[in-house]
């Protein structure tokens, strides 16, 4: 579904990714864990073409998207829940959702919207409220809902649990599991390594711009190095 081959990404002169290869297969949940500054967000953003990889290749469903513009990548069946949620704070919940389904017909939008409200009944209650006035957890639900509006085949989530209350985190992870059942491929970046690896089919460990480890979620959870570094021993 998504393949990164020996990807190098630069911010100006600084190289943030030093030749990263990652593969996400159809229907999987793949988690990427790593410390702050390891390049997790850079990796996800490189998939979205912002910034573009300076060398190496990115393939989405077999198509080379390494040098495609962001807007066209994001219209080809992939959606992102970015770091920090980035909901449109001045727009209402409903308007935010409609932005997510911008390129779909009215009927499709209607359908996706009902589906999102089913997943997150809270959003339905807040339909006409400005997104900026909602709590962090509600904003995170909205960000996920917005990403689902385009009916993506693959969804990328960047630290969806960051800064949320434990009960909300639980709910978010349940929804992520539910997405897999709907057939959506999930590529997840998390600091919350335990949750992310328990849920994942496979996982990658990123350290200072390089993939250190790559295994099934269960094996990584059992790996002593991973336990020491990311799971608090």
């Amino acid at each position, binding site marked *: 579904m998504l393949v990164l081959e020996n990807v190098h990404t630069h911010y100006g002169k600084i190289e943030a990714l030093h030749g990263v290869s990652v593969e996400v297969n159809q229907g999987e949940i793949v988690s990427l864990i790593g410390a702050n500054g390891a390049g997790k967000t850079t990796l996800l953003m490189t998939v979205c073409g912002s910034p573009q990889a300076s060398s190496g290749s990115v393939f989405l469903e077999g198509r080379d998207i390494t040098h495609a513009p962001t807007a066209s990548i994001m219209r080809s069946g992939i959606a992102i829940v970015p770091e920090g949620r980035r909901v449109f704070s001045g*727009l209402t919940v409903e308007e935010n959702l409609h932005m997510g389904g*911008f390129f779909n017909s009215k009927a499709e939008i209607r359908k996706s919207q009902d589906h999102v409200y089913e997943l997150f009944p809270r959003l339905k209650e807040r339909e006409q409220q400005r997104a900026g006035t909602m709590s962090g957890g509600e904003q995170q639900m909205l960000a996920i809902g917005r990403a689902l509006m385009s009916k993506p085949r693959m969804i990328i989530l960047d630290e969806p649990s960051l800064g949320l209350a434990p009960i909300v985190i639980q709910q978010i992870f349940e929804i992520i599991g539910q997405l897999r059942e709907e057939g959506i491929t999930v590529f997840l970046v998390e600091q919350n390594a335990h949750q992310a690896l328990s849920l994942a089919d496979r996982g990658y460990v990123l350290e200072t711009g390089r993939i250190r480890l790559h295994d099934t979620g269960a094996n990584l959870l059992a790996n002593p190095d991973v336990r020491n570094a990311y799971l608090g021993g």
Partner: protein
Amino acid sequence: MQDLLYFFQQLVNGLTIGSTYALIAIGYTMVYGIIGMINFAHGEIYMIGAYTALITITGLATLGVTWLPLVLIVALICAMIVSSAMGWAVERVAYRPVRGRHRLIPLISAIGMSIFLQNYVHLAQGSRNIGFPALIHGGFTFGSSDTFQAQISYMQITIFITTLICMTALSVFISRSRTGRACRAVSQDLGMANLLGIDTNRIISATFVIGAALAAVAGLLLGMYYGSIDPLFGFIAGLKAFTAAVLGGIGSIPGAMLGGLILGVGESMTSGYLSGEYKDVVSFGLLILILLFKPTGLLGKPEVEKI
């Protein structure tokens, strides 16, 4: 009674001028809201709108078309089309290549574009001012003939109604339409809109086109109101509209409308009660005061750094 009539007269004059400032100010504020730059060539776009309208009116007169509503509507449409094309082209040529660089670079580019357009019109149309036919005559008079008489001309009413229609249409467009919603989203987080697959360049172009079209409307209206235009016609109006946009809170469309009206009324009150010479002092004094004490403007929101 007489004092009241005099005040009423100044108020009407102020609202008339102010509503056209507001029309121009919307162009500044929308562009700033989306890409954070001041389009200093916007005054010239307005001036070109006025010239296009004048050329169209003259052309129609030569063809023998004299039915007023037709003349006005054709002139308006031509001015809007030419100005919009100009606004679009200016963004493509002068701003897009330097977007994302240091803030001063697009600013210099904008000033360059403004000088270029002014001189282009100098060459093409001559530098002397040209009479603009009033077309709309007459009006209502209030008060008895032996004391002060307040007058509201049909021209003023036309200006007021036209700007009202434009602003209502714009508000509905921004709040209800799909593209309008995208404009708001892009102005809040351009990068995120891009991550939703939205071609943000097209939204930016649309902003320039809308701003330019509204400026063209103002060009036709003020051309008729003042009775003459010259290539520097856009310079002072541009500055005033910019002031109005800052006054109301740059980036805010209702702010631009409010700022324009306040500025217009402030100016006409100054002319009416003090002296016409002071009106620019008052407007730019107001700009300095607002920058000193409330830099975000009356309706502007402070930029909040989110974590």
